[in-house]
């Protein structure tokens, strides 16, 4: 069981440019795969394609196949995909429904869409609130949350659909260090305690170093390197691809240059 992209190329409707080219990628359940790369590398498009939102919701031409377990994204309905693969985008503000009075109801939005029994909706919301440890937020109005809290609530809303995979497009890009830590801790906890497969695009390599088991580098729509997180993030070619190395790697390198050994 896996989220699998095989020979995937993608171009948006009306555009001659190929945004993704011959991408092969597999995310197993319980695994966190990080994606790094320079701007315009196609990272956000990779997220949309992997989650089945492109070309499902955003028109374009897909070549190759994307499968989520036994579902092929090009033929599956969006609501079927949503239950297999949750998506989280950069801007927490646009991911909340904007029509609910409390965080609790916001998290219940997805399960309610499925028409589940009330018992089941309540159970799912309570379970997600407990997993992400956001009990103190449930009574709050979604519009009054900080960026980090809103992103956590958006994540909770997606998790309440109980997807086997998560696709996250720079989930901390608009967050301050405190918000980044909130979301990072939540993802680390999720990966450690559940069997959810996570594909996460992230510029903050310090965050990836802490949660990803493998990291792929995407450049000009192609995967140019993929390996264990520690190996890729320590790769000297990384800055050349427009990606900062984690501070621990930079510190170790600076120390080594000065003849200081770091244990």
């Amino acid at each position, binding site marked *: 069981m896996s989220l699998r992209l095989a020979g995937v190329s993608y171009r948006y409707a009306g555009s001659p440019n190929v945004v993704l080219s011959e991408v092969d990628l597999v995310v197993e359940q319980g695994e966190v795969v990080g994606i790094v790369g320079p701007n315009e590398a196609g990272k956000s498009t990779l997220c949309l394609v992997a989650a089945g939102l492109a070309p499902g919701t955003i028109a374009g031409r897909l070549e190759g196949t994307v499968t989520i377990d036994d579902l092929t994204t090009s033929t599956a309905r*969006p609501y079927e995909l949503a239950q297999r693969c949750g*998506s989280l985008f950069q801007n927490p503000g646009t991911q909340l*429904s*904007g029509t609910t009075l*409390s965080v*609790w109801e916001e998290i219940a939005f997805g399960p309610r869409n499925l028409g589940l029994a009330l018992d089941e*909706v*309540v159970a799912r919301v309570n379970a997600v609130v407990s997993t992400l440890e956001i009990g103190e937020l449930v009574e709050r109005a979604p519009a009054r949350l900080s960026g980090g809290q809103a992103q956590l609530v958006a994540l909770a809303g997606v998790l309440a659909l109980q997807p086997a995979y998560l696709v996250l497009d720079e989930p901390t890009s608009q967050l301050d260090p405190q918000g980044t830590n909130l979301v990072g801790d939540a993802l680390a906890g999720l990966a450690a305690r559940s069997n959810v497969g996570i594909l996460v695009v992230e510029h903050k390599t310090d965050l990836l170093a802490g949660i990803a088991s493998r990291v792929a580098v995407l450049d000009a729509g192609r995967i140019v390197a993929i390996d264990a997180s520690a190996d890729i993030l320590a790769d000297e070619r990384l800055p050349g691809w427009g990606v900062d190395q984690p501070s621990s790697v930079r510190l170790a390198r600076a120390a080594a240059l000065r003849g200081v050994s770091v244990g």
Partner: protein
Amino acid sequence: MTQRPPSFVVRAPTGTYRSLNPATKLATAAAEVVAAFFLGLWTGPVVVLVLVVLTAFVAGVARRLGVVAAVTIPIVASIMLINSLLYPGATDVIARIGPLAPSISGFLFGLQITIRLLAASLALGVAYLTTRTGDLLADLERRGFGRRASFIIGSAIETVPRTVTRAAEIVDAQRARGLDTEGRWWRRVRGIVPLAAPVVFGALTEVEERTMALEARAFSTPGPRTVIRTLPDSGRQRAVRWALLLGLVLLVGLRLTGHLAVVP
């Protein structure tokens, strides 16, 4: 053991007018809007305006309704000016100043439209200020309203405060880059373009992101959504709604057949 939503989710709104079922408040607002436009030239608008103001005091939203009224000032001012100065075919012109011909009949016509517009917008304002969007949507969905239609209504209502917040952020950002948005009126007008463009384009970008976010939350699942709370309703409120609906139809019918011509 059966699990229930927490009490703050199922808690119904309290207060004399706020506690009414959203459908009752919507029906009242609709009837008031129709009465303001169909019941005579002065009677309907004036009666509705008085009723709406009284309701606002009872519901404790008079101050906020004043803000809604203030928002209509530019429209009201332009209606009054155009009609008072440029009313076509006026026989009681007070003076002629170039193309301008101020007249009593033009002034009265402008006043009539103003009261009508004010009555209708404040009637909707009272419904808006006394009904939480979530309550309205919960009630609409419970009544079998489609999820898309309900969501569009909810989103449209929530767009107003969201756009105001976004506009304020953009004003701050433009000021930080040296744009003068205060002072004389032409400076304010000149500041509208760099404000409007980001608001409009930002809203369009948001629509795409929101659509994707909705799809990612299984919004297009066929069939009814789970109802998590039912807002209180009563036989008396149902009777009032039917009476309002019948009165509304009757009013439109009488107006169209010319039977209300005697009402001033």
